[in-house]
């Protein structure tokens, strides 16, 4: 298992006047094997830029992104990505989408379907193998997206606000499902959200980010997600005074960093 590390990274988009504000300004962080790192922040704080760096979709203007002892130079199936809007392929049905990564590697049809079926079981979508993508609800689509990323057996799962477009009830179910998968597969996860409750509940390490320029203003180690994964009920975890206090503290951090950013405008 390898550690994913971002070291002193700066990212500038565009040229000229746009270049004055950095999307990421000297950001450093590490994702240890088996950790669940959540990036929390308002829009424009560079969360997605950070994920694009880790995925290899983007190169830093300066600084380093490394995975294990190698620099990240492009996308790779060792770093799986789950997208906000699924990015599923509508010309493929559910199981073909999930097996897509194995098809790219030239693995025979029966073998890849077998593995895809196992992943669909993991995300509780058994029996929907032959469904068309547009027949699925938003929550189901995201589960297909998770299964597709898992099928390639990545060491790290990078999730770009995967629950952002879901309704509140589905969202909580999905939080629990993702924690469950995290505990069972022992993969590292990098998870983006702007939901404070979600961030505190899920993270083993919570990064609070602020916009203009994009920075990590706080890094907090938490254990609520681990408690849930080890069998505690979600409601009980959330009812703990410690959880409520942490949530309030994080909320203060997010709002004060946003006020600072607005003052800089």
């Amino acid at each position: 298992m390898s550690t994913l590390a971002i070291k002193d990274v700066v990212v500038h988009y565009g040229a000229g006047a746009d270049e004055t504000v950095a999307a990421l300004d000297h950001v450093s962080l590490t994702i240890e094997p088996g950790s669940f790192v959540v990036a929390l922040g308002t829009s424009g704080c560079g969360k997605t830029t950070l994920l694009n760096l880790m995925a290899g979709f983007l190169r830093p203007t300066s600084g380093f992104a490394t995975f294990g002892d190698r620099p990240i130079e492009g996308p790779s199936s060792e770093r799986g990505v789950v997208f906000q809007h699924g990015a599923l392929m509508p010309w493929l049905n559910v199981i073909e989408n999930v097996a897509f990564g194995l098809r790219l590697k030239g693995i025979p049809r029966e073998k890849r379907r077998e593995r895809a079926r196992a992943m669909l079981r993991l995300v509780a979508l058994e029996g929907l193998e032959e469904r068309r993508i547009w027949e699925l609800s938003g929550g189901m689509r995201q589960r297909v997206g998770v299964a597709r990323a898992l099928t390639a057996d990545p060491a790290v799962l990078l999730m770009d606000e995967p629950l952002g477009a879901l309704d509140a009830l589905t969202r909580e179910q999905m939080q629990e499902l993702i924690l469950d998968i995290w505990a069972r597969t022992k993969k590292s996860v990098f998870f983006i959200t702007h939901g404070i409750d979600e961030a505190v509940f899920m993270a083993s390490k919570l990064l609070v980010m602020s916009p203009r320029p994009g920075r990590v203003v706080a890094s907090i180690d938490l254990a609520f997600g681990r408690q849930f994964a080890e069998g505690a009920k979600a409601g009980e975890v959330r009812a703990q005074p410690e959880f409520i206090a942490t949530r309030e503290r994080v909320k203060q951090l997010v709002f004060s960093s946003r006020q600072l950013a607005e003052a800089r405008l």
Partner: protein
Amino acid sequence: MSDSPTLASTRESSLRVLSLSPLRFLGRFTYVGKVSVATCVAVVFLWWLAARLEVVPAMFLPSPFDVAAKFFAVWRDGFQDATLWQHLLASLGRVTAALAGAIVFGVVLGFAMNLSETARGIIEPLLEFYRPIPPLAYLPLVIIWFGIGEFAKILVIFLGILPSVLIATYDGLKSVSRDMVNAARSLGATRLQVVLLVLLPHALPSILTGTRIGLGTGWATLVAAELVAATRGLGFMIKGAADFLATDVVILGILVIAAAAIVMELALRLIQRALAPWQGHQ
């Protein structure tokens, strides 16, 4: 197609009344379909009426029955050394060959424009230069350069169809989401795999729509192409009939072209539905 449920159910109840009448077969059509059928029937009726009352001399406007009779005559005995079927086949062959060529070149060039800035720089001005020129305008030039053979005819039709397919391919490719491509790359796709397994299926509905639009242009260009030194073909047949003031054969030719075009259009729609069932579902 986009009927609201309430409207559909009102129509269903009116259908039940209809189902007792001799017009029962109409029940299989949608409301729009019924209006369309009624329109066609009305036009043929007015045509028949105008011919019957001899609003214009029969030499200029033969009745629908005369044209129908001519259909069987030309089918059996032919017109200008070829039967209707042979004329039709010659035209179909040209349009199909031109269409196939336009799909191959349109898709390949559309991909080239999408994947390479250089290719786009080369293709775009050339395409935009020749696209608005009516095929009739460059037909003489094509004949001067390529002669009066089959190749020149197919080339003119091909040039008429190509822009629709090319632009549709390019537009279809442009609309692919970055996430979709990134999803494939993060699963380990090579550049070629992204092209074949993501870009091509994504652009397929658009390519097929472009093909359907191009086909219309193809039929429009066909007649022009067959005006020059053809010995067979529907365009040639119409031209020859016009020279002898055989108005019934002219109308017959027009109707056969329309019928052939409609059949090909419907076939393409079926293909589109089979190959791209996700269209309109995103």
